[in-house]
């Protein structure tokens, strides 16, 4: 009966057996509690080529996300460009009008994992605003949530339309119209700029803002990919990484594209808590248009890293059919949900 050894052993055993206890702070959980269908116990089918299936079990979330309950589907978000209510003003300028509603909503970010999101129009990412440079954009924000919010667009606009505390911040129950000219052309974003900032961004208040050049661009199959992440246990680091919110979504439901067709993806990084995110496409290279603000590509590569709010337009064409992965090249993010694939036919 070794005094030191036995005590040591028992202590270590005890620590192992004790497990963990977690206390949840200040969260709305109605949806999580009523959500009754069990996701555990089902093995998802990951045997298809191009997915990470291998002999000893596989990477990936177990079960499926109920997009109907979420009210949005990442596959549809990909190509859902919102031009708003369009009209011409007296000068003949095209006006895009949007109605935005700030809403607190619990969303499923991985199968069975619910996150108390703050949203514009109930979806994360928020609607993709799209217009041509020089058009007028008018966004009416009605705040139906419990906190102050703004819409801060990345673009060139007057100070009063910046969407920050003191300039267009909307208190609960109030509203404000952001009115500005689409400028410059490129792949941009908008997000809430109320304080505390990290909370307001990470909770889901962001979306893509795409301004097309007047001259237009060549025909292509266009997609919006918002690289985001969720700190589901609120400890300052993320448990879920994805593009367009749902972990492993495009791994389980690959993006269907055509061989020989030009692909144009607007890739936007809004990941909170990590200094960088990245995108890497398999078995191909892409032309990189930094911030989408040029008509000529800046670079020809297969991997690009971005800080928060950095965004680029990438163009590529797959020559042959097949399944091709694309994912962050921070492999930690890959294994936490940011894994996707193209199904080229």
């Amino acid at each position: 009966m070794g005094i030191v050894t036995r005590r040591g052993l028992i202590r270590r055993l005890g620590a192992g057996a004790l497990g963990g206890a977690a206390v949840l702070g200040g969260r709305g959980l109605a949806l999580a509690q009523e959500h009754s269908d069990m996701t555990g116990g089902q093995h998802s089918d990951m045997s298809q080529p191009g997915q990470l299936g291998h002999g000893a079990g596989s990477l990936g979330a177990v079960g499926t996300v109920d997009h109907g309950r979420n009210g949005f589907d990442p596959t549809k978000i990909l190509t859902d460009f919102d031009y708003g209510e369009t009209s011409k003003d007296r000068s003949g300028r095209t006006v895009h009008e949007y109605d935005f509603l700030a809403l607190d909503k619990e969303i499923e970010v991985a199968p069975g994992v619910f996150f108390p999101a703050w949203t514009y129009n109930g979806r994360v990412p928020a609607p993709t605003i799209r217009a041509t440079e020089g058009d007028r954009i008018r966004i009416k924000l009605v705040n139906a949530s419990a906190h102050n919010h703004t819409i801060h667009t990345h673009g060139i606009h007057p100070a009063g339309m910046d969407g920050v505390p003191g300039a267009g911040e909307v208190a609960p129950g109030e509203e404000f119209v952001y009115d500005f000219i689409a400028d410059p052309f490129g792949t941009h974003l908008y997000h809430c700029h109320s304080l505390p900032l990290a909370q307001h961004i990470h909770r889901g208040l962001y979306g893509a803002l795409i301004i097309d050049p007047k001259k237009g661009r060549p025909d292509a199959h266009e997609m919006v990919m918002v690289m985001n992440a969720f700190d589901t246990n609120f400890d300052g680091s993320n448990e879920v990484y994805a593009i367009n919110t749902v972990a492993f979504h495009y791994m389980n439901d690959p993006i269907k594209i055509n061989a020989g067709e030009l692909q144009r993806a607007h890739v936007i990084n809004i990941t909170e808590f990590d200094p960088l995110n990245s995108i890497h496409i398999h078995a191909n290279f892409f032309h990189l248009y930094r911030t989408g603000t040029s008509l000529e590509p800046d670079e020809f590569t297969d991997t690009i890293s971005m800080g928060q709010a950095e965004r680029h337009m990438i163009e590529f064409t797959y020559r042959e059919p097949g399944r091709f992965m694309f994912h962050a090249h921070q492999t930690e993010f890959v294994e936490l949900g940011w894994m996707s694939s193209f199904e080229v036919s």
Partner: protein
Amino acid sequence: MATITAGSRRIPTWLTGLVPIVAIAALVFVFLVVNPIATLRQIPPVEAIAFERTIFQENGIELQLRNDGPDPVRIAQVLVNDAYWDFSATDANLGRLETSDLRIPYPWEDGMPVNIALITSTGVTIEHEVEVAALTPEPDASTLGIYALLGLYIGVIPVAIGLMWFPSLRRADKRWLNFFLALTLGLLVFLLIDTVAEGLELSAATPATLNGLSLFALGALGAVLGLMALEVKLNARRHGAQTGSTAVGGLALAYLIAGGIGLHNMGEGLAVGAALATGETALGTFLVLGFALHNTTEGLAIVAPLGRANEQRPSLWHFAALGAVAGVPTIFGAWLGGFAYSPAWAALAFGVAAGAIAQVLWQIGRAMSKDRGLTSKLGPAGFIAGFMVMYVTGLFAA
């Protein structure tokens, strides 16, 4: 007033005894149906899961989980070393105190740490860190045999060797007998302190809702009261035989000591078996030798009360039985620890061991007080020597 009094007299006693039971049943019913607490509980749920057992198999990891918190928990996803991993669960929805087995087909690496995080439906993560992954032994014939052999080496054989001190004790004069009885006392006090300390640590490691401290206390009090009842029975028999003594005789005392030490050794086997099974320690030669050396002195403690001159020499089979009572539980402990470890049961087992040792201490103390054993010349020296022997041999098992 008078009528009420008259009426109450007519109510049978058993019925009046039922009144509080009916009242508490009504209260429970009201709480379950109306749920008046719900209006007070605006706070979010507290989600807690205890990892009762982690089993590493050739093709994956199995976790035995228990909901250790006040609220239901739904396990939505499992992360292994920061990667979402495929898993299956017997039940992913765990009500209060409910258990579930989780299977993760993860290609774990021998000798490396593994971090497992359960993500609940609310996004909370509950983590479990395994310091060193190692294949968990299956309870088949060969591993059962190995654990039995281990119990034999650290429990049975050393105790049997210790019993061989009997002939020399028999020849020793009374002063030295008192010395050895005092030494036994010191030895047992050491074991008691050790057992209580470990039992308390296990209590702390037990899932909070199972209240490990109460389990430990239950075991201890149960052992003390049980042995007291046994003593009363033994005394009654002796009174029938007209011996007239209130203290237990030498052989009975030896059995009591053997029983107490046996229970203690079961805890010891439990600890070693569990540590080996969970890969927490390697079975080193020094560890086994240390335990063996340490436990040899326990044999001496058992035969010490038989050395007194007024004692008859017991027949040989008694020695075999004493050795078995003190040593064999080590084997069962090793099996339990290796294949069915849970801190709650271990806390209870250590409680029983502590209670048994305390009771034996009381018995020896009473037996010795007759001849002023502890206050005799060599008494204090014996006591300290016993304690020191345990301490020093314990260092070998460190």
